[in-house]
């Protein structure tokens, strides 16, 4: 069910945030809120500052102007690349966050096993990251993020390197393990259908410096978001001039 989009307390907010890195202004006057249990997807063309926005939310960079507030008790992230420790076995990679929080070894191994099973890696406990495929590595990264019991998950184009089939599988996992369990999430993607599939709210960011150009609430229950519906909804969105402009006819990005 597409819940969580209602009037709740705002847990994470970016208020009138601008970001300047060196000579470049990356983001300008961005307002963004995430409510408990809400899944927000940021879409937009490459280079519009989506990843920077995520880094702001993660507290990895500070806003040049404006304020970032994060009231979630535990924030975790899945990056564009898996970013696993190549010298640690899969279970130890999943348990990384738990180890950092001082959870005893036995306990964190049990938890890590559980999560490995839930992302479909039950028979690969002792493998090193390079022995796993790209899709598996990304699932390990997701399990690592879930292991610490995060109530807020940041996902930075986590499936952009996967092929269509694996991508579908990974999206399903995120839908079941994150969105439907009421974990709030902020996900960056450049795929409009992916956003429509997983979001309560889709936010289109565009331009240079990037700003929020359009916001779209998705009320369709997750179970009803079929492939056909997704394509239709995406087409519908793309017919809107604002979205269309930022996605398709951006002259600066035509070459890219």
């Amino acid at each position, binding site marked *: 069910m597409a819940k969580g989009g209602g009037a709740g307390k705002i847990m994470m907010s970016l208020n009138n945030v601008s970001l300047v890195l060196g000579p470049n202004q990356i983001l300008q006057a961005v307002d963004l809120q995430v409510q408990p249990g809400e899944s927000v997807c940021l879409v937009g063309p490459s280079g519009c500052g989506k990843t920077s926005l995520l880094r702001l939310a*993660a507290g*990895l960079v500070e806003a040049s102007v404006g304020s970032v507030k994060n009231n979630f008790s535990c*924030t*975790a*992230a899945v*990056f564009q*690349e898996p*970013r696993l*420790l*190549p*010298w*640690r076995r899969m279970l130890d990679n999943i348990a*990384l*966050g738990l*180890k*950092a*929080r001082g959870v005893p070894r036995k306990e964190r191994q049990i938890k890590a096993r559980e999560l490995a099973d839930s992302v479909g890696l039950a*028979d*690969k*406990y*002792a*493998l*090193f*990251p*390079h*022995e796993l495929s790209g899709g598996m590595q990304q699932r390990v990264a997701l399990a*690592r993020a879930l292991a*610490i019991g995060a109530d807020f998950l*940041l996902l930075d184009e986590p499936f952009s390197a996967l092929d269509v089939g694996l991508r579908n599988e990974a999206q399903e996992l995120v839908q079941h393990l994150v969105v439907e369990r009421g974990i709030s999430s902020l996900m960056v993607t450049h795929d409009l259908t992916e956003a429509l599939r997983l979001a309560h709210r889709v936010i289109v960011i565009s331009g240079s410096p990037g700003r929020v150009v359009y916001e779209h609430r998705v009320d369709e229950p997750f179970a009803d978001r079929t492939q056909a519906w997704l394509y239709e909804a995406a087409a519908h969105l793309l017919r809107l001039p604002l979205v269309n402009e930022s996605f398709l006819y951006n002259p600066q990005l035509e070459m890219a």
Partner: protein
Amino acid sequence: MILVINTNTNANEYRLRIVKSPRESNGYSVPSLDEHGIMSRLIKASLGWGGSLTGILLFVAMWEWGSLHYGNFLLPGPRDALASIHGFWQEGELWGAIWATTWRAMAGFAIAAFTGLILGLMAGLSHTLGRALEPVSTVLLGIPPIAWIVLAILWFGSGSMAAIYTVAATTLPVTFAGAQIGARTLDKRLQEMGDVYCVPGWMRLWDFYLPHIVSYVFPALITALGVAWKVTVMAELFATEEGVGAGLAMARVNLDTAGAMGWIMVVVVLLLIAEHGFLRPLQKRMEPWRKGAVQAKS
């Protein structure tokens, strides 16, 4: 049970390993015993060994030929060298000399490895310290070992200390550089991941930095080990009464070329044992993930 056969790329080494379940294996698993496969691997492995052996035998043959050509006063042959090693053994010199040289080389090497690792780690993590220590390291690297020996004899007098000090001073910059580069090259993206997961300092050192640094430090250590043996022998030549270097000094005084050749053989064998019997197996144990990476490519 499943028999897993891991074959190295260059077929120099092969090993058989029995694992309890496929879950634990990280190599290729062969569900049925394929005798033909094992045979071909054995042949491949022995060919690999044979290749190395061929090189050594060729070298020995050239040596023998040179000895026949120039006469065994100028260039004693391999058999003369072995005979004089046998002579040292009978006189009871051999083990004492090996022990003295080994412990000096190892002590100096251990000091240099330990200090270099810690200093290099700190220099890699702190840019300021790195900039301060780098020129010092370059200066140390530029001082010839023979100069260190002279200084060491002046400071510590003749004896083991002079040799150990010289070894430590000459190998320190090598291990330092390895550790520094290792600490400096840790992937920024992994560090960012560590930030997101609030990884505390000790764990960052243990889980992030050290495993990464190990892969830079081991080649440096292997280089340093070679330097350590050579410098030890040289220091012993000047500063001590026993050890392989002292034996060489004796051989020079007695114009005993075969003896000198014998001692050289002893040092080379010691170095090979230290590298292939100790350091490389240690590296394999400490970097199981890297060994797998090699296999994946093969």
